[in-house]
C-alpha cells in the first residue's frame, strides 16, 4: 500500500476484554514499531521488530501486552484484560533502514477507549 495502515481506526471495549490492533507496514520495510500516545502526551515506545531479529519488547508496560509480526509483514498488538489506563492512541510505524535515512512512517493510529 501507499502508507502504513492501521485497523481499526477506533475501538471501544469493555474493561476486562481482550483487543487486537493490526498494523500493515509499507511493503518492503524491515523495521516495525508500536508506540502509545495518551491524550496530549508524548510517544511511549512499546515494541520494535527488526527483520528476523528478536523483537525489542522493553517498552511493553505489562504482561497483558504482547505483539507479533507474521512473515516479516503484518503485526498485531494484543492487549489482554484491558484496563481504563490502556485508553490511548496506538501508533504503528515502519522504516526501511537503508542505513542513510531511517525515516519512520507512521500510520494514523488506533484510538482505543476502555469503558
Amino acid at each position, binding site marked *: 500500500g501507499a502508507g*502504513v495502515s492501521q485497523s481499526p481506526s477506533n475501538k471501544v471495549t469493555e474493561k476486562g476484554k481482550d483487543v487486537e490492533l493490526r498494523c500493515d507496514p509499507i511493503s518492503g520495510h524491515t*523495521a516495525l*514499531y508500536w*508506540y502509545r500516545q495518551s491524550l*496530549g*502526551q*508524548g*510517544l511511549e*515506545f512499546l515494541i*520494535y521488530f*527488526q527483520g528476523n531479529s528478536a523483537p*525489542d519488547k522493553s517498552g511493553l508496560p505489562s504482561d497483558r501486552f504482547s505483539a507479533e509480526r507474521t512473515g516479516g509483514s503484518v503485526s498485531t498488538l494484543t492487549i489482554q484484560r484491558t484496563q481504563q489506563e490502556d485508553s490511548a492512541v496506538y*501508533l504503528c*510505524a515502519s*522504516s526501511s*533502514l537503508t*542505513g542513510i*535515512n*531511517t*525515516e*519512520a*512512517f*507512521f*500510520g*494514523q*493510529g488506533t484510538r482505543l477507549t476502555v469503558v
Partner: protein
Amino acid sequence: QQQVKQSPQSLIVQKGGIPIINCAYENTAFDYFPWYQQFPGKGPALLIAIRPDVSEKKEGRFTISFNKSAKQFSLHIMDSQPGDSATYFCAASYSGNEKLTFGTGTRLTIIP
C-alpha cells in the same frame, strides 16, 4: 541514557515569528536526530533530520541547530504561519539500533 528531554511543552507565537523548540539527550551513541510534526488526528510525519557531523541543516523554513558538545539540538521555524500549528517531537536513534526515542512533544500555536 535513552531519554530525550524536550522543551517547552507548549508555545504560542505570532505569525511571522521564529518559534524555537529545544531538545537534549544523554546517550552519546545517538547519531540520528529527526523532528516529527503531528497534526490532530494524524500520525507523526518526518519534518527534517540531522546527523552529528554537521551543526546546522535547513530545509525550507525549518532549521535544525545541533551542538554535539552540549548534547543539544533545536528546531527553528522561520516566518511561521498558522498552518505550522501542530505538535512537534524531537527524536534520536543510533546506528545498529534504529529504535526512535522521542521527546515529550511541544504543542505549537501560531496566531494570525
